């Protein structure tokens, strides 16, 4: 098993004729993901690395049976790409694009929810179910099929953590970058539900950061609903209030959303919190 993507994933790459879209389409294909098509309006009929390009998601889904899409289109067209994907009938949409206006995302996340689509991101590195499929820009080599579910608001920090998990021989079931923006599709709780139901996943790592209260809400959910162990790791202890730490969502506003609050909430819910990434594998091993 795994969550959201697996051997049966049929991927369509929206914005495949762009630089990033084309590059990562090839990388995902190399990893073994079944990339069935790409979309680029006006370039229908072309091929990118052997992958057929269509003018619309509607047509791409009709012709390839695609069930998952990944979006690389520029920020100002990205919300429309989400609408198009949500309307096309795919089950999972991964939005890599960064810098989408927040008010566009307020509408797009709602639209996706009403269409019962799993929307990951935006500003997400994507996700990987090692050995099965990669839908995103994550470096495939550092992952190993295994028992830990990882969900994170960050990109490279996730790689750092995963590197420790893989080297400890635990491996990952599915690893997800949930997106660094303030308004994102699926949140920690949505993934927790899926991990709880996934037989392959034995423990979950939640990598949080300053800003918002997603970690606090997840802590409450974990305490009340999860039977599987969750390990937390929160970064941004040194971040000053009012300053955006790279990610649009990583900002301490009016004193709330601090790392200290989040760590306290997790601990209060009985969730172990690692001080450093290298501690994570030990904590997991002590729990499973």
């Amino acid at each position, binding site marked *: 098993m795994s969550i959201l993507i697996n051997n049966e994933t049929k991927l369509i790459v929206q914005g495949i004729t762009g630089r990033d879209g084309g590059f*990562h389409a090839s*990388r995902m294909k190399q990893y073994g993901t079944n990339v069935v098509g790409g979309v680029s309006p006006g370039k229908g009929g072309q091929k990118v690395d052997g992958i057929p390009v269509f003018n619309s998601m509607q047509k791409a889904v009709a012709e390839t049976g695609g069930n998952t899409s990944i979006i690389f289109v520029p*920020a*100002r067209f990205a919300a429309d790409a989400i609408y198009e994907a949500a309307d096309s009938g795919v089950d999972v949409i991964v939005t890599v694009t960064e*810098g*989408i*206006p*927040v*008010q*566009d*995302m*307020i*509408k797009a*996340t*709602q*639209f996706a929810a009403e269409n019962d689509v799993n929307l990951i991101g935006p500003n997400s590195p994507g996700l990987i179910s090692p050995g099965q499929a990669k839908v995103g*820009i*994550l*470096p495939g080599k*550092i992952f190993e099929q295994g028992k830990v579910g990882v969900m994170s*608001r*960050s*990109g*490279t*920090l*996730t*790689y*750092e953590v995963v*590197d420790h998990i893989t080297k400890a021989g635990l491996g990952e079931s599915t690893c997800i970058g949930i997106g*660094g923006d*303030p*308004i994102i599709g699926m*949140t920690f709780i949505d993934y927790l539900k899926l991990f709880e139901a996934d037989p392959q996943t034995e423990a979950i790592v939640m*990598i949080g*950061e300053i800003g*918002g*209260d*997603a970690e606090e*809400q997840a802590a409450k959910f974990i305490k009340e609903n999860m039977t599987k162990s969750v390990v937390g790791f929160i*970064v*941004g*202890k*040194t*971040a*000053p209030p009012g*300053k*955006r*730490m*790279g*990610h*649009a*969502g*990583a900002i301490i506003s*009016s*004193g709330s959303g601090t*790392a200290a609050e989040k760590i306290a909430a997790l601990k209060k819910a009985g969730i172990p919190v690692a*001080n*450093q*990434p*290298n501690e994570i594998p030990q904590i997991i091993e002590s729990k499973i």
Partner: protein
Amino acid sequence: MKIDEYQAKEIFTQYNIPTPQEILCKTPQEVKQASRKIGKKVVVKAQVKVGGRGKAGGVKLANNPQEAEEVGKQILGMEIKGLKVQKVLVSEAVEIKSESYVGFTNDRSSKKIVCMASPAGGVDIEEVAKETPDKIYKILVDPLKGGLHDFQARNLAFKLYDDVKSVRQTVSILKALYKAYIGTDASLVEINPLVENGEGKLIALDAKFNFDDNALYRHPEIAKMREVLPAEKVEREAKEKGLSYIKLDGFIGCMVNGAGLAMAAMDMIKLFGGNPANFLDIGGSSNPKKVINAMKILLNDDNVQVVMINIFGGITRCDDVANGLMEAFDALKINLPVVIRLTGTNEKEGLEILKQNKELILANSMQDAAKKAIELANK
């Protein structure tokens, strides 16, 4: 992006939100003339993009043009939280029968827009939220469900006022404020206080607007209002070069790829007793120019005693990154110790390249790097 009160009021006026009669002035003489033109008591208000101007003496009443000129002299040129006051808004003094608060912002957990109102206006709303949260009323507004409905605005207005006349005015102000919020891609808009004057008319006495930087391309007229504060100059320049930089008060300069990893590195420095001089995310590219620019920023900060570079090569290969670093180091004169931790894809090849530069201090983990950097800084 933030703007000044007078700019926010200009937007209010466009959206038919009532404001006091006001004139922007840059000299005490202009203040005097403005006061004369308004023809009654005025309030002279410093235009600065930081809170607490009232406490700092940046808001003063003047009974006549002479007093206004005097007050103008006091406020223009004063410093508030390190910012020099260069503009003041001369505003008719309004008789205040009651003060309330209304505002809109984005709500992360519901993924909607939240409209807030409180009868406790005129004071710091965050204080109200902490001390008496039951005095803040909220409704969620869904732009994909018709936006702010009249009935929602009305229900909220009835929390502030009992009389239909004030409720009607509040409804029309809330609707206009929502329109302004959506129409400008704002991330926050506030009227605090919204006052009821002697004639029972509701007026926005103060105005606050923050905007979504990612949406400014849709609003060139607002983008034009951007004024880079001196304190933000370096951050702004870094941003234009594709770097995300924030200055802090520590002594270990950090350069990391990825925001989350950067925060992790800073936290680790702190954990081991050090103090990071900055947040600096160079993003996902191995472009040597970015590394050069990043290094220049760190070297320009006199507090920085040692530089710690932490790179996790993902899609970007470590050998590419190493080549970029070497090129950067060749181009710059570096008179500080530099600790580098480089791992991930093609790590070995990358490290081989780095070893050519004998002055670089290599670390085999983020912990190791943090410890070495702290040690060097303490020397």
